């Protein structure tokens, strides 16, 4: 059994880290040298940060702070592990190959967990180890502290992986439910959004007005210390980790830590392992049991047929839609929270102009970052795009159909954000509609730009091999372009409102945005005419 687990683990590790490709030993040594250097650099940066926290921000850098930071980092790690394990254990592309090997299913499961543990350990080398070392330096710990910290790092990596594998079962349960009824995902997202709005409202309502951050600095620091102490009550085993690192009740704490890890491992064996094969099979496309009803379709124009297909895809994979548009969906909440803080101050005329510029900046960052699926709209079709192009009609219209769905969703959320700020109690209404017009124009221009990127350089091969998770260079370019536009629009707003002091700044800002949109539209039409027919899948 162990030899099979070892073979399976090594195969996955070899595939993950591309061992076979490392033929050049000199290159390998150089790579290891730079990796070690980057760990030392992280130690230096962490030490500097802790030094600033202690001597500039005046927060104590002691065991309480350590437990707090470790606890928060491990919560993030747990979330990442749970989501990553869902993908790796149940949706992994290698599942079909591994399951067909002459090995038992639980051996595949254990090998996958081992690979994930090694991955987590490597991640901790870049975060937890530097944190341990920096805390040791700041608190003047003895020599024993450092090897002890290394042992603890090995043990620490077990907890998010084991807990994550348990949580992944629950996530898969929810996913199975959501797959049967896609509206559950939407209702869940909507429920979470309502809850977050309620929490934001409570937070903003509790602010003392006007906020003067400099005057309440002392209260901020003392409340932070008390907050850390309260949170540490829930840190459970992480308290033992830090106590062990600081050489307090060493044997007892090591026993507690080992006990927790053994209990978690037993829970994984009892809960996750028996249902692994069934769950992993669920991710397979052959597990779809939905029966389609046959119906007579009405004749539609080419454009309407293509648009209908885009909206059908959105309906069919509502969860994917929420993931794609999560930044746009969260925009009303972010703007509400941000404006709640802005207007809890007593802004001067300059302050109001700064608020307008920051609102545009933040909104555009979120909106343009969501246009990444437009930047991979053609590539995501994969090799099937060739079939689409051979249709006996004007298939160029697929470009407009793909963009209209994005445009409709973005505009809907821009209007929703403005309406929400308009009706919010704690926010003063300044230039909301002008802001909305600028956002719609710049975002539409950016959608055209993003599609143009994919039109000129589609990545069919990458998508055919790796499917939707593939990193597309066009996506990165789209995000960078969007960020540049957000910065430029914010600077233009500051210039026309604060430096130029013109009587009608909004007509100029909207004029600039309309100019950008017109330019992108003309360029897109030209590019579509020239490049669309040249695309070869």
């Amino acid at each position, binding site marked *: 059994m162990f030899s099979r687990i070892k073979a399976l683990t090594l195969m996955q590790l070899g595939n993950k880290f591309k061992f076979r490709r490392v033929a050049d030993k000199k290159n390998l040594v150089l790579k290891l040298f730079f990796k070690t250097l980057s760990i030392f650099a992280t130690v230096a940066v962490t030490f500097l940060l802790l030094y600033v926290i202690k001597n500039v921000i*005046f*927060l*104590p850098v*002691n*065991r*309480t702070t350590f437990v707090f930071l470790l606890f928060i980092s491990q919560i993030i790690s747990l979330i990442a592990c749970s989501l990553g394990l869902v993908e790796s254990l149940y949706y992994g592309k290698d599942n079909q190959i591994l399951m067909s090997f002459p090995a038992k299913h639980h051996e595949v499961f254990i090998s996958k967990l081992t690979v994930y543990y090694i991955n987590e350990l490597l991640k901790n080398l870049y975060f937890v180890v530097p944190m341990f070392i920096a805390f040791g330096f700041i*608190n003047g710990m003895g020599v024993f502290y450092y090897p002890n910290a290394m042992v603890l790092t090995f043990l620490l990596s077990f907890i998010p992986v084991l807990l994550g594998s348990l949580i992944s079962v629950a996530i898969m349960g929810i996913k199975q439910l959501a797959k049967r009824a896609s509206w559950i995902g939407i209702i869940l997202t909507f429920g979470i959004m309502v809850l977050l709005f309620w929490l934001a409202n409570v937070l903003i309502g509790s602010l003392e007005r*006007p*906020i*003067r*951050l*400099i*005057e309440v*600095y*002392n209260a901020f*620091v*003392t*409340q932070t*210390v*008390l907050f850390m*102490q*309260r949170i540490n*009550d829930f840190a459970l085993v992480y308290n033992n980790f830090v106590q062990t690192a*600081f050489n307090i009740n060493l044997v007892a704490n090591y026993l507690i830590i080992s006990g927790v890890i053994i209990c978690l491992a037993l829970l994984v064996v009892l809960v996750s392992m028996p249902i692994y094969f069934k769950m992993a099979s669920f991710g397979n496309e052959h597990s779809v049991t939905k029966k389609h009803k046959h119906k007579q379709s009405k004749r539609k124009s080419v454009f309407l047929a293509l648009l209908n297909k885009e909206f059908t895809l959105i309906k069919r994979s509502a969860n994917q839609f929420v993931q794609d548009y*999560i*930044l746009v969906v969260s925009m009303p909440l*972010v703007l509400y*929270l*941000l404006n709640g*803080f*802005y207007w809890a*101050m*007593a*802004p*001067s005329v*300059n*302050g*109001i102009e*700064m*608020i307008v510029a*920051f609102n545009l*900046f*933040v909104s555009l*960052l*979120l909106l343009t*970052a969501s246009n*990444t699926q437009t930047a991979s709209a053609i590539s995501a079709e994969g090799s099937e795009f060739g079939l689409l192009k051979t249709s006996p009609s004007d298939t160029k219209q697929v470009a407009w159909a793909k963009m209209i769905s994005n445009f409709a969703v973005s505009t809907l959320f821009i209007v929703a954000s403005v309406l929400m700020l308009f009706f919010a109690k704690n926010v003063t209404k300044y230039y909301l509609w002008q802001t909305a017009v600028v956002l719609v124009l710049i975002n539409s221009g950016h959608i055209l730009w993003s599609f143009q990127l994919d039109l000129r350089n589609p990545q069919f091969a990458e998508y055919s091999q790796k499917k939707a998770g593939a*990193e597309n260079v066009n*996506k*990165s370019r789209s*995000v*960078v372009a969007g*960020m540049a536009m957000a910065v430029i629009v914010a600077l233009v707003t500051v210039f026309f409102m604060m430096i130029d002091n013109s009587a009608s700044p909004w007509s100029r800002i909207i004029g600039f945005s309309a100019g950008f949109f017109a330019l992108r539209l003309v360029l897109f039409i030209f590019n579509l005419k020239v490049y669309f027919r040249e695309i070869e899948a």
Partner: protein
Amino acid sequence: MNKKTIIMLTAIICVVSIILVSIFGQVPNFQTNVLVKTISIEGYLDKNGNIIPCEKNNAGEDIIWLDKIEAGETSIVLKWKINPNNASNPDVYFSTGIDDDSIVVSDQGIVTFYTSTRTNCVVTIKAKDGSLVFARVIIMKRVSNNSPDGGVEL
């Protein structure tokens, strides 16, 4: 550059923007100059934010008793009161008279013990507005059932 980077960047920009608007975009706070008249140390805060009040020893000095002092772990947040509470500059500074960093007190009144061998200290709080008003408190580790005595020599 991906969505995660944008989320982090947005969070940083939001915080920076609030700080910038607070510093450069607020109506100035006009007040007449009111000096601090008295300062008193009420005690320290427990982790739930409740005040654990000072006790008085026989010499009438304020004293805070701590059950344990652990190096790098024990941190207490002092709670003080300024009169009048609408003083123009309510800022204060603290000093311990200990210059070896074994006990550090920040401007926010957070006293941190970086050694467990030193078990007592005197913290002095002074107003920053030049009014020369100050108060003192003695922080001591409680040894068995010792009750406040007639003063501490440090």
